[in-house]
């Protein structure tokens, strides 16, 4: 834990109260002057920290920036996901950075955020729009003890986790579309991209990429997606606290990853089914150049979508584009 993470943690708990510089210094084993120097640095970053000679420091306001130390200070307990958080001003894609860390053998749980991405990507190499400071884009490195076929579990878990985080932070009611879209109304607000590196029977590592259109305004979307995309800001009519949402998403991901590791994916699947707009609907699924039509019946234990085709047999869908029929 860095000094700044410690100071921000101290300032945040319990909220609204002051903490003395001496107390922080003692716990950290540094001088009060060193604490003061860090407080000044945090102020320069936009943190409004009140310093009173008798009461000590009090956090009044946080800036709308994503800072690794701050996000880490807000995660409860000793989480795996977010044990290390790095924020990039700009990168090609947060998943590119994680891929590099994965190749170097870095342990799971590291998270990379970017304030903008020059080559943000969605599924099938589609572009993911990432205007600076408007969204929340991050990728997580995981090394789950799963078979490659079970990796879909993590896409499903991430979708439910992101939906829960949006709901708890904004009171909006998101829905998920199999496998990786988060919708508000019928418009997409967030997406999950899972990239897998696997051997025949074992996942080597998995990169979970999340993109949330937090504070986009309509003009931030290219015209071609305006009818099908939305943002939290557009739905709420005011900007959202990106750091708060980021923390909520990491917290929910931690919870679901713990459930998957202890073999309780079924609990996630149940939640997912409740959020899912796909199940019970007539859908068409494009897999490569093949299109299947049918009713989305249920979710298999590995996260696959079970489709009852118009010919009456059950197809397992593990990838492809799902469109809902009106």
């Amino acid at each position: 834990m860095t000094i700044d993470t410690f100071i921000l943690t101290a300032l945040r708990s319990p909220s609204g109260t002051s903490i003395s510089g001496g107390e922080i210094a003692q716990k950290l084993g540094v001088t009060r002057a060193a604490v003061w120097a860090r407080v000044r640095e945090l102020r320069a970053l936009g943190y409004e920290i009140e310093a009173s000679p008798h009461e000590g420091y009090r956090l009044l306001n946080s800036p709308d920036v994503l800072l690794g130390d701050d996000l880490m200070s807000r995660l409860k307990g000793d989480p795996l996901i977010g044990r290390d958080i790095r924020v990039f001003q700009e990168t090609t894609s947060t998943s590119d950075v994680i891929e590099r860390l994965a190749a170097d053998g870095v342990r799971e749980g590291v998270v990379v955020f970017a304030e903008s991405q020059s080559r943000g990507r969605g599924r099938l190499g589609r572009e993911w729009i990432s205007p600076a400071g408007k969204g929340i884009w991050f990728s997580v490195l995981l090394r789950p003890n799963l078979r490659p076929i079970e990796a879909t579990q993590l896409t499903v878990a991430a979708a439910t986790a992101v939906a829960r985080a949006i709901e708890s932070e904004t009171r909006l009611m998101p829905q998920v579309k199999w496998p990786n879209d988060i919708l508000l109304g019928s418009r997409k607000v967030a997406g999950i991209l899972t990239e897998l590196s696997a051997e025949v029977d074992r996942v080597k590592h998995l990169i979970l990429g999340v993109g949330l259109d937090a504070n986009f305004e309509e003009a931030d979307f290219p015209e071609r997606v305006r009818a099908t995309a939305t943002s939290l800001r557009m739905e709420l009519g005011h900007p959202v606290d990106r750091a708060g949402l980021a923390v909520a998403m990491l917290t929910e991901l931690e919870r679901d990853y713990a459930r998957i590791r202890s073999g309780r994916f079924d609990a996630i699947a149940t939640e997912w089914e409740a959020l899912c707009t796909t199940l019970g609907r007539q859908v068409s699924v494009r897999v490569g150049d093949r299109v299947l039509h049918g009713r989305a019946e249920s979710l298999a234990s590995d996260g696959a979508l079970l489709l009852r085709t118009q010919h009456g047999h059950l197809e397992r869908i593990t990838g492809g584009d799902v469109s809902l029929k009106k």
Partner: protein
Amino acid sequence: MDLKDIKAIIDLMKKNSISEFELERQDFKIRLRRNANGVAQMGGAEEGGYIALPGPAVASPAVPVEPIVVSSPSTDLEIKSPMVGTFYRAPSPEAGNYVEIGSEVTPETVVCIIEAMKVMNEIKAEVKGVVTQVIADSAKPVEFGQPLFKIRPTA
């Protein structure tokens, strides 16, 4: 003037067979020299075991049979820090360095990170070449304009 400009000058020199180029401005001076057969003069150890000498181009004492090695480290380009911050050679303490001496880079290759205001800024090579020297120390503060790497441009 940045690496891109220098590279453009080198390209122009090659194209028009110019062997020497000098430009002087208020507090900036650059001199580029190519040798007669069109290959840019380079620093660094050659097969003959000569070690590159710092400073202006120096011809080694003439030794019969042995090739004459001309050393001119000034043809290596410097990647300079575009900001004040902390220099990191790897994206995480657990990860390997972006580049090492001898690494081939393209203009898009990320060579290091400068952390400023707690945010990581990827620094790109902006030139095609080979890393010949790592000048700055990882995890240490760097100033604006401070040289970080030397790159020997390649065509």
